[in-house]
């Protein structure tokens, strides 16, 4: 460490300017806006709480929350658990590199490609999925409509992210010492028990991180919902981020849109704080093996 010299702060100024002006400053704006009455882009009067009281009576918001929780529950299974199991199976193959490379691949594609492709696969005319189930004589299904909307979107999420989480789990399981794996075999544990009672507990801290990513990611997910469902007139797949964008950019309701942003920010930060506190207690004792 060099001697203290306050001119050295200049090194952090460019990054601080971009980050501060574009990210932090507008957050203050958003919170501030939520306390104003607006006529489109013109602020009328300061000091109203009407946007926050509206949060309590907005039926679409209730629907969005419900859908968000459903999406998180589905994706914990289809992204997280699937990734965990894929990692475990890859460890039991002699050559898994090719498989792993393919499963990871979707995440490099832009969401517009994934969403539009799957919208086409799910389509009622010219759709691949209905044609495939038609081979065994099943009737065509409306995949992107109630009651299947959330499940169908979650499947696309799973297809995109399961390989990503597999890669993370695989990399951390690869650090488990060979002696632990061997002694499990000597003790007569089958592959099922070895995986769930030895390998998974040893990467418990990664499991917590993945849960954090999926849960907070669920409240931030916008692209796939917008691209797969487009306008979604029945709101069967509306989630907090799409509700926010529609309120703000399509209805140009700045006050309520800001209040929704504040709510979304609070939810994400609250989840992080809760999981961080609980997670530390869970992972605290297994940091070394």
């Amino acid at each position, binding site marked *: 460490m060099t001697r203290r010299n306050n*001119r050295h702060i200049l090194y952090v100024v460019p990054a601080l300017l971009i*980050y501060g002006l574009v990210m932090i400053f507008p957050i203050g704006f958003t919170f501030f806006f939520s306390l104003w009455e607006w006529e489109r882009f013109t602020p009328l009067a300061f000091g109203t709480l009407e946007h926050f009281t509206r949060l309590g009576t907005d039926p679409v918001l209730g629907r969005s929350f419900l859908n968000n929780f459903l999406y998180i529950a589905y994706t914990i299974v289809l992204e997280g658990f699937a990734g965990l199991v894929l990692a475990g199976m890859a460890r039991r193959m002699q050559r898994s590199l090719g498989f792993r490379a393919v499963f990871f691949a979707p995440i490099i594609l832009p969401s517009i490609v994934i969403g*539009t492709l799957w919208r086409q696969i799910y389509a009622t005319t010219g759709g691949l999925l209905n044609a495939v189930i038609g081979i065994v004589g099943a009737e065509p299904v409306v995949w992107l409509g109630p009651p299947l909307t959330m499940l169908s979107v979650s499947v696309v999420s799973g297809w995109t992210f399961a390989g990503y989480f597999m890669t993370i789990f695989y990399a951390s*399981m690869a650090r488990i010492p060979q002696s632990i794996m061997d002694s499990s075999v000597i003790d007569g544990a089958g592959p099922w028990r070895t995986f769930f009672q030895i390998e998974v507990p040893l990467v418990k801290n990664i499991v917590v991180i993945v849960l954090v990513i999926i849960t907070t990611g669920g409240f*931030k997910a916008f692209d796939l919902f917008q691209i797969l469902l487009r306008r979604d007139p029945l709101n069967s797949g509306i989630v907090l981020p799409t509700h926010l964008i529609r309120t703000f950019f399509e209805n140009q309701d700045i006050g309520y849109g800001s209040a929704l942003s504040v709510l979304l920010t609070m939810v994400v930060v609250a989840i992080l704080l809760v999981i961080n506190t609980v997670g530390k207690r869970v992972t605290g004792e297994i940091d070394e093996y």
Partner: protein
Amino acid sequence: MSTEARSPIVVRTIVWAIMAVVLVIYVVPIFWMYSSSMRTNGEIILNPIGLPTRIDFTNFIDAWQMANMGRHFIISIVITLSSTLLVVGSASLAAYGFSRLNFAGRKSLYAFFLLGLILPVQSFLVGLFVLFRSVGLLNSLWAVILPTSAIALPLAVLLIKNYFDSLPSSIEESAEIDGASTFTIYHSIILPIATPIIATVTTFTIINVWNEFMIPFVMIQTTELRPLTTSLYVFSTRHSANYALRLAALAVIASPMFVVYILLQRQIQRGITAGAIKG
């Protein structure tokens, strides 16, 4: 050196069979995208599972021309390069300051940076939209370059700073004795050693900015200024009945990504997972 889970042959066979089924689920949609692109729209509607009867690139050429993809490709390249330069340049400078130098407020400013790791894009999007609208930046490439850079910065600073922290202080001591300035030490000693982490940061910034959808969706309504992602959204809405054309457009976008992935697979995996394993 990675460990493995040794298993009996029965287990291996079952695992192999399940993995093969999963592989099909991954490959079929991509294969279908390419094969349907070489069929006519009528053929797809009549029988979505059929294979193309000939090698035909008409749909690819039509999609390229009708979606004006050449233009939107260039816009995406300009946005991605600008953001990446901003991120790598300013993050490596800041990380150097935080890691190797000493000034008033160093620790609190760094903590202020880390705050950005937990904030969702939606927390500042509304405020930023109104801000950009009032200073006339809406519907300009800056309206995408600046926020995508700002989002990438906290993780970039964290990763590069951690890397700098791991370097021994003896590295710059002899240069200091020779009277080298801090900036000389930064660009001719520290930065060249940091190539691996700079590559990681560059990789995830390029991929994230290139794929970004929500920010240009909100910030750019001018057709000619849209990057590839949102221009494709508008294109596929406009041609919602022409499945063959739409799938061909997707194939055109996806192909270069696959080529890059095949060439730089390890680098890309390291870059994309760096965010999750930060701890």
